[in-house]
């Protein structure tokens, strides 16, 4: 029986010692009333447990009576120390704290003034009962005030701190229960004695838990905060501006770290975002940080305010009131968040840089197009005059030219006309994409038929046809017509023979888009030149040789790109020995009735 009781008190003593060591170490780092009170609680419990070793044989007589009185005086400070801890953490008001201190003074005075207790077995006078009831009542009052205050002070704090506060509150209640039960059952059975001893142990464990949280329990308690944090962390990954990053993390940080206030301060000391702080308060904090060297770990700026250095700036948090006691948790959490914020800010900075370069590139491109447009436009005017005077010269003075004269005049004319076509094409190229309305449904079948009919007039020997059905598309009429006309004309012009066969057809693209094919069985384009002929000014024949200005395919490619597609050049169509297949690859967006994308086409072909 005694063995069990001894074991229980040994465990209690060890636990108290461990917690006292932890608190002692914290006390050396930071002296605060809260740490002192907590240290006092455990010192008292440890002292009381240890005192049993020097317990006199008769606690009612001689030095034994003095021992008992001193022990009681020490013991009654315990609930008061709990109240004091609660007060230091802001859980009870100054007035309540003073009342409880007065109650303690009363207990000590009454204890010292009362005569020694009668020995065991002797009849107990009435005052003994009154004294016992007074002490128990005072203890209970203090314990309950402390428990209530601790519980309340934990509200709104981070989950770990909240649970720690509740653990302390429960410990106070259980310890009070233990005392009341042990007083009520002075002549208790063994079972009752062991039960009471175990209850005492529970209260000690609850107290200890508040200060020495096992990692697994800490993780469990923190779950709720971690959920809020990880959702904010996901937000950080998608933030695209510094303001986004700040808006995502600052309010969450303020609530998770318990103090209700947080701010993000930029490298220049400017407050970028504050939560729970007025602009002026936040700026005052930022000013304090301005000249502070940036260190790796979380620093305390002023009591209760923690700051984590970022790559440029600071993450500042008003820690909870309990930070002096439970500050490590908050510092670790803040450090972790600061790392993530740093990453997010780096990403944002890269993203912004990328946006800037893209805007610059777009602006340069726009400038170039404007230049191209105005230059080609201005070139047109003198050329009209050149052609005009050539005309006049030929009509009015042609007869006076002799020898090679008429030939030279002809060459001037051919070149001037060629230059006019070049300028017209350049102008067209620069126009694609300018002021083009979003498109209305267009009957592509009808457009293709008209294009083929028109082209047939210029190439009577060629066989031109539209094969199958072309679906309606969302494209500008002018551009679609220009695309098909250029492709068909190109096929005829470059075929190298008069009886070329040209077909226009359509098929579904694997991504749900549309493929427009213009195929010919002409001489074809050697594979090594296919990429090149799509560029501006690239031709396979010399200038003026009737092979065009070299811009037809570039214009077609530009039209396709304008709607989000592209243009590709391939080899002979199926069944032909020579020839070219030009394909306009148009995205799903141009289709009116969407065609589902064919998923895993390559795989299914492999299976077949």
């Amino acid at each position, binding site marked *: 029986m005694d063995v069990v009781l001894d074991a229980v008190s040994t465990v209690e003593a060890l636990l108290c010692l461990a917690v006292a060591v932890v608190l002692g170490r914290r006390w050396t780092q930071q002296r605060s009333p809260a740490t002192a009170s907590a240290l006092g609680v455990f010192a008292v419990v440890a002292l009381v447990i240890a005192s049993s070793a020097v317990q006199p044989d008769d606690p009612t007589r001689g030095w034994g009576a003095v021992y008992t009185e001193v022990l009681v005086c020490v013991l009654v400070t315990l609930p008061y120390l709990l109240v004091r801890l609660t007060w230091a953490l802001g859980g009870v008001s100054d007035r309540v704290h003073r009342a409880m201190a007065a109650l303690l003074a009363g207990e000590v005075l009454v204890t010292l003034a009362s005569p020694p207790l009668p020995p065991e077995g002797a009849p107990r006078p009435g005052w003994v009962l009154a004294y016992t009831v007074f002490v128990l009542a005072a203890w209970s009052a203090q314990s309950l005030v402390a428990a209530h205050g601790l519980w309340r002070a934990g509200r709104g704090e981070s989950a770990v701190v909240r649970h720690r506060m509740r653990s302390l509150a429960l410990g106070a209640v259980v310890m009070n229960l233990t005392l009341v039960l042990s007083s009520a059952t002075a002549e208790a059975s063994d079972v009752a004695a062991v039960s009471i001893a175990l209850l005492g142990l529970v209260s000690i464990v609850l107290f200890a838990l508040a200060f020495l949280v096992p990692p697994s329990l800490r993780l469990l308690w923190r779950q709720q905060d971690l959920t809020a944090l990880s959702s904010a962390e996901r937000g950080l990954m998608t933030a695209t501006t510094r303001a986004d990053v700040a808006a995502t993390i600052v309010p969450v940080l303020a609530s998770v770290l318990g103090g209700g206030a947080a701010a993000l301060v930029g490298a220049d000391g400017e407050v970028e975002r504050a939560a729970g702080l007025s602009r002026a308060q936040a700026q005052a904090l930022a000013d304090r940080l301005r000249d502070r060297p940036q260190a790796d770990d979380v620093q305390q700026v002023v009591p209760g305010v923690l700051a984590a250095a970022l790559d440029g700036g600071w993450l500042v948090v008003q820690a909870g009131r309990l930070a002096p006691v439970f500050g490590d948790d908050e510092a670790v959490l803040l450090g972790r968040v600061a790392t993530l914020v740093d990453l997010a800010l780096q990403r944002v900075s890269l993203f912004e840089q990328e946006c800037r370069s893209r805007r610059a590139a777009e602006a340069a491109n726009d400038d170039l197009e404007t230049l191209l447009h105005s230059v080609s436009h201005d070139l047109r005017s003198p050329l009209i005059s050149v*052609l*005009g005077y050539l005309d006049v010269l030929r009509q009015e003075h042609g007869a006076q030219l002799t020898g090679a004269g008429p030939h030279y005049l002809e060459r001037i004319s051919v070149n001037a006309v060629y230059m006019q076509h070049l300028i017209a094409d350049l102008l067209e190229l620069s126009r694609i994409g300018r002021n083009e309305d979003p498109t209305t449904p267009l009957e592509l079948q009808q457009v293709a038929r008209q294009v083929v009919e028109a082209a047939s007039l210029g190439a009577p020997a060629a066989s031109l046809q539209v094969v199958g059905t072309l679906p309606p598309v969302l494209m500008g009429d002018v551009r679609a017509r220009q695309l098909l006309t250029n492709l068909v004309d190109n096929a005829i012009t470059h075929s190298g023979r008069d009886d070329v066969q040209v077909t226009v057809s359509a098929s579904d693209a694997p991504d749900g888009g549309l493929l427009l094919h213009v195929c010919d069985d002409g001489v074809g384009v050697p594979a090594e030149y296919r990429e090149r002929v799509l560029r501006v000014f690239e031709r396979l024949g010399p200038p003026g040789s009737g092979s065009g200005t070299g811009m037809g395919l570039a214009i077609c490619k530009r039209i396709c790109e304008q709607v989000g597609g592209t243009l590709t050049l391939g080899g002979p169509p199926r069944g032909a020995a020579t020839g070219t297949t030009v394909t306009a690859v148009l995205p799903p967006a141009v289709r009116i009735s969407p065609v589902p994308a064919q998923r895993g086409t390559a795989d299914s072909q492999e299976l077949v």
Partner: protein
Amino acid sequence: MNAARVLLAEDDADHAFFTARAFRDAHGADVEMHTVRDGAEALDYLHQRGRYADAPRPHLIVLDLKMPKVDGLEVLAQIKGDEELRTIPTVVLSSSDRPQDVADSYDRHANSYVTKPASLTGLREGVAGLAKYWLDVATLPNGAAS
């Protein structure tokens, strides 16, 4: 019958030459072309100032937009803001096809806007159309033309 008088305001001497020639080709001898080189000259002509003190009132004005000193839009605005002049049909003949230029011209009550064709043949056909419509088909104030 009096010859139809056309005031052509065009800073490019070559274009003025071809435009005037095209008018004559289309309308024959009974068209009288008066050419000025900039907007200020056009206004002097219309208000009969300086060396244009005796200039006859035109039946049709053909106006380029891009001109030195006073540009075509300003000239147009002044013509259409003047009680005396605003009844003279004024056609803008410009190489610009910018929608803004077109809108600005009609805002200032141009009677029509013609984009200068990019080739001489086109120019000749365009001017022939203009001459045919304004000098033959349409009835002009002050008993001009047909």
